[in-house]
């Protein structure tokens, strides 16, 4: 979408921080690990010292052996793949629908007047309330699960995109008008880049909700998936398995969010944001 103009300009010096940049770049995520790691360590020591039997709240070592056991039997991969593909498909569908409807409703006032009230009304329904209906309509297997996730993803993406389009600065649109951009060119060269930051945020919110809803979906009768591990652990009284599943949820959820962030970062390099000013770039 950008039109590149090559010029023989001297290379712009990259700003240098006082310390070695690679050091700060490594140290920053480690800082975030400090709290959870020391809590885990403290709990491990408490159980090890016999102050607690750790039956209901298993110590980290027990959780790790559980994960290792699951991994060795190949079960873990199966559960992860199942859950990931549910989230992936649901997220894809939700994003597609949210983007399409959000784009149309943001751009055309008529469509917004026609469709938006209905969507807002549907949004007021707690999404879990759809579960019985989805099961009746779509059966107990994959389709209803994916549908629930897609519904969860749809709303933040739709809202984020319509909101972003409506709040595009009129002053910048006028720049496009002065250069007599046609409708499609205005969308491609002004609206699209202008809404991108807010859209990326809504994608990340959507992904977060997708992970939330996959658990709900897998609670409603699944035979595999991380949510199934949770239910199974509860029914068979295996707290270590529950915590293991939770830990894996956390790791994969964070990893997918991080991937999304990485994938979109090149598109948002131009942003003059608070995060950049405080040196988090």
């Amino acid at each position, binding site marked *: 979408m950008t039109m590149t103009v090559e010029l023989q*300009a001297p290379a*712009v010096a990259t700003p240098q921080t006082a310390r070695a940049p690679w050091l700060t770049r490594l140290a920053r995520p480690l800082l975030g690990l400090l709290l959870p790691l020391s809590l885990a360590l403290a709990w491990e020591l408490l159980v090890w010292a016999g102050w607690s039997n750790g039956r209901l709240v298993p110590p980290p070592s027990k959780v790790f052996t559980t994960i290792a056991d699951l991994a060795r039997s190949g079960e873990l991969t199966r559960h992860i793949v199942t859950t990931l593909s549910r989230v992936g498909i649901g997220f894809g569908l939700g994003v597609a629908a949210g983007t399409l409807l959000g784009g149309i409703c943001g751009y055309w006032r008529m469509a917004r007047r026609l469709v938006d009230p209905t969507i807002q009304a549907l949004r007021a329904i707690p999404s879990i309330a759809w579960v019985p209906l989805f099961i009746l309509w779509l059966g107990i297997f994959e389709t209803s699960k994916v549908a629930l996730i897609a519904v969860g993803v749809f709303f933040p993406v739709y809202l984020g995109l319509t909101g972003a389009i409506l709040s595009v600065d009129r002053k910048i649109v006028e720049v496009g*008008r002065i250069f007599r951009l046609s409708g499609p060119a205005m969308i491609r060269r002004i609206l699209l880049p202008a809404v991108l930051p807010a859209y990326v945020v809504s994608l990340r919110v959507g992904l977060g909700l997708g992970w939330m809803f996959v658990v709900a979906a897998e609670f409603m009768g699944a035979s595999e998936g991380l949510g199934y591990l949770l239910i199974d652990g509860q029914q068979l009284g295996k707290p270590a398995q529950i915590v293991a599943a939770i830990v894996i949820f956390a790791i994969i959820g964070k990893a997918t969010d991080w991937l999304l962030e990485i994938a979109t970062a090149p598109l948002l390099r131009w942003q003059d944001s608070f995060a950049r000013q405080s040196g988090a770039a």
Partner: protein
Amino acid sequence: MLQLTSVTKVYPNGVHALERFSAEIQLGEIIAIIGGSGCGKSTLLRAVAGLDRASAGTVTLDGETITAPHPKVGIIFQEPRLLPWLTVADNIGFGLSELPAAERRERVARALDRVGLADKAKVWPRELSGGQAQRVAIARALVAQPEVLLLDEPFSALDAFTRKDLQDHLLDLWADTRPTLVLVTHDVEEAVVLADRVLVMRPHPGRLFEEITINLSRPRDRNAPLFDQFKRHVLTALDRSLDRTVPDAQGRREPGGGLWW
């Protein structure tokens, strides 16, 4: 020639922003429009730019009525309005997307050079100072080689030194291709430094109050006594335009005509 005929603008909320404004502006002329806040200067400029339609009256450029943004008319706003997602060079080349890449590159490079920002080509707009950003905006408007360039208080957000610098700069750029400049300003000195004619407007509703021809040769010496006289003249007219007891002045002075005092 840019011709404004009885341009009138009533906003939907009933505000009478502009009342029967007429003016004739020759190619290559520099016009300054000055007047109190809210007297319709921006409204007038937006009508000429084709961004807003006048309620009545017409704006024509070489006989062609302007109802939408016109390829020969450029505008520089009070804020730079750079697109934050494009580098400085891409911002300047924004309006040239129809040209072949090589020519576009060449023209952008020349424009960058002209405003003294050749080293900022690859920089994001957020990394520019206010004055630099406004210079990029000037380059972006000029690179399209408009016949008429409208400027709505382009330097008002800048400090006095940068402002003076950019005024001189604008004159240099103007001397290159001699476009028509229509400049809205609050700064009497700016008007007298730049303009061939100063149009003083008065509010409620916004209309033309007085027209003052500045027949000083360029480059103009800001410290010359005659310069001061013109400044005082504009200032007095401005004062009188805000005084409601003074009736609308009608007298138009011919270029080279005597001063009224």
